[in-house]
């Protein structure tokens, strides 16, 4: 049984099919890439998978259960974590507080417990801080713990975002262009990092990326999308040599020079 599976997922924006009968499957522990030109529907697919958009029809199965009706926060609880194309984060909170917010789903104490400083709140705060301290060391963000995200370089905020979403302990990670806007050196480090995340946590990764070397390097399997339709599927080598993919994404001129 695959971890995540979509069946005939379709969504229209004003007559234009943003997604058209999309069937994808992601196995446990697999790194799967999504390839396609701008407007192909990659981010729309992410929005549908993470619950930010409702598909017009089609089914989304996660660990064999239908999850189409679940709200975004419920999908996080089910084990789907996502990042956004443009780094979002919480600008008015420190890095430390940003990471504490990401602990939300592992905590349980309510407002009254906090206001009355009850033991449940104390336990929650201690657990959350312990985990954040651990994460700060793992992602090497400790020197910036008290800084605000606006004081960090774009690449560092990318890693903070990744650390936040990893704190959710997702079973599948949806990464929307993690390499966009960061330095080449950091891009090169990202591929091995994603594999490390997969190996150590056993979490599957679905990756949208325009940096071809990263996408082809990191992915074990790739789906190519164009005009909301899956036009090719296979290993990185198979997909990039597919005629339809070459036409839609890499362009014919590239093929002529190859």
């Amino acid at each position, binding site marked *: 049984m695959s971890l995540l599976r979509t069946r005939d997922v379709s969504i229209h924006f004003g007559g234009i099919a943003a997604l058209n009968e999309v069937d994808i499957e992601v196995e446990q522990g697999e790194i799967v890439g999504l390839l396609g030109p701008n407007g192909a529907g990659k981010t729309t697919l992410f929005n549908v998978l993470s619950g930010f958009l409702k598909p017009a029809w089609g089914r989304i199965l996660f660990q064999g259960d239908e999850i189409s009706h679940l709200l975004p926060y419920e999908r996080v609880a089910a084990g789907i974590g996502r990042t956004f194309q443009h780094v979002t984060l919480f600008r008015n909170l420190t890095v430390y507080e940003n990471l504490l917010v990401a602990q939300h789903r592992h905590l349980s104490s309510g407002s009254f417990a906090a206001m009355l400083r009850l033991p449940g709140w104390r336990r929650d705060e201690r657990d959350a801080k312990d985990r954040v301290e651990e994460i700060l060391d793992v992602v090497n963000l400790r020197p910036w713990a*008290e800084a605000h995200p606006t004081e960090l370089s774009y690449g560092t905020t990318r890693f903070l975002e990744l650390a936040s979403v990893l704190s959710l302990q997702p079973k599948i990670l949806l990464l929307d262009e993690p390499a966009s806007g960061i330095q080449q050196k950091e891009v090169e480090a990202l591929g*091995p990092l994603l594999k490390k995340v997969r190996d150590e946590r056993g979490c599957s990764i679905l990756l949208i990326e325009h940096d071809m070397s990263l996408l082809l390097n990191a992915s074990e399997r790739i789906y190519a999308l164009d005009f909301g339709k899956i036009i090719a599927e296979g290993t990185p080598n198979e997909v*990039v040599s597919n005629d339809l993919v070459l036409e839609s994404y890499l362009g014919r001129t590239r093929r002529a020079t190859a």
Partner: protein
Amino acid sequence: MNVDVAIETKGDSPQITETFDTPPATRARGRRPTRSQLLGLASLAIISLVPVPFGDFGYFIGQYATIYAILGLSVVVVTGYAGLISLMPYSFAGIGAMATGAAMASWGWPFWLALPFAAAATVPFALFVGITSVRLKGLYLAIATLTISNALGETFFTWAPVTGGDSGHLVGRPVVGPIDFGSDLAFYLLCLGAVFVLLFMVEGLRTSRMGRAMLAVRDNELEAQALGINVAKTKLVAFVLSGMIAGLGGAFLAQLLISVTPNAFQSPFAEATSLLLVTLVAIGGMDRAIGAFVGAIALVVQQQVFNGFEFFFAFVGIYAAVVLIAFLLFRPGGLVQVGKILAALVRTRPALGISIIAIILVTNIGGAWLILSLS
């Protein structure tokens, strides 16, 4: 195909750290700065003693300031923490005051029972406001809450069995067991105790699961959802907690005024006072509990200073608007942030910092004295 070029393998252990930017200069990392906390407590104690030389008049002003600080705390939760601009706080206070009035005057309940009842009475109203306006933001939310506050003035606050009709309720000062809070000093101490307890509670909320969820929703709803936060529930909790705190403030307000009449919570007083409360918290500092306390003192002091003027109310409106805009534009952290900046200045450049503080104190106290002697 030149795909192979693209798939060349890179080194297996990435040294991501070396590509990071240089860390900012060593920061004070203490999340529990006990020294500044002690300093804060000491200044709170000193501020609490300010009314003493003024006798009963001082205590009355002190009661007024502490009750406005409680109402300000309700704004801190809903607007400061959760980022929801709500013009409901004074209406919630009115519901609390009416509940207290009905419970104590009509049903003969003791004060200690009327207090939680006042808080609980706001809950259904807060839930209604929260559920009806959960999808609204910013100005639209402000308008929606304004409308609801207005509608409550025409419905709830004209409901004679609860509000006691036009004459309202006559509420005596509280007596709890053997302790009589009838004197101004005793009631001032009771209000002071209440505001300190609530300050402690609202500050605790900030460092908790739900409090951080509110801050997250304020900053970025989308990211909050992506991190597993139930945005609708978080907003509802903010509305309910804010309503309950305002309800408690209303219970104390009823005790302060001794007689509570419903027209104090009808249009335009309800909306105007709620706006004043938002202003107060913006001046004090939106996202810290202590901001409500600082803002309430600032408000009450300037009201006393300008009290002698005929055009007082018009002036306060304009003044509040100008100060609010100035703070939102230049110091969104309010007086609390200004205080932190000055404290940092004193630490780094003591002479400059102390002289700036001296200039601020002299111009303000001097100005107040000038205005008072003119009126």
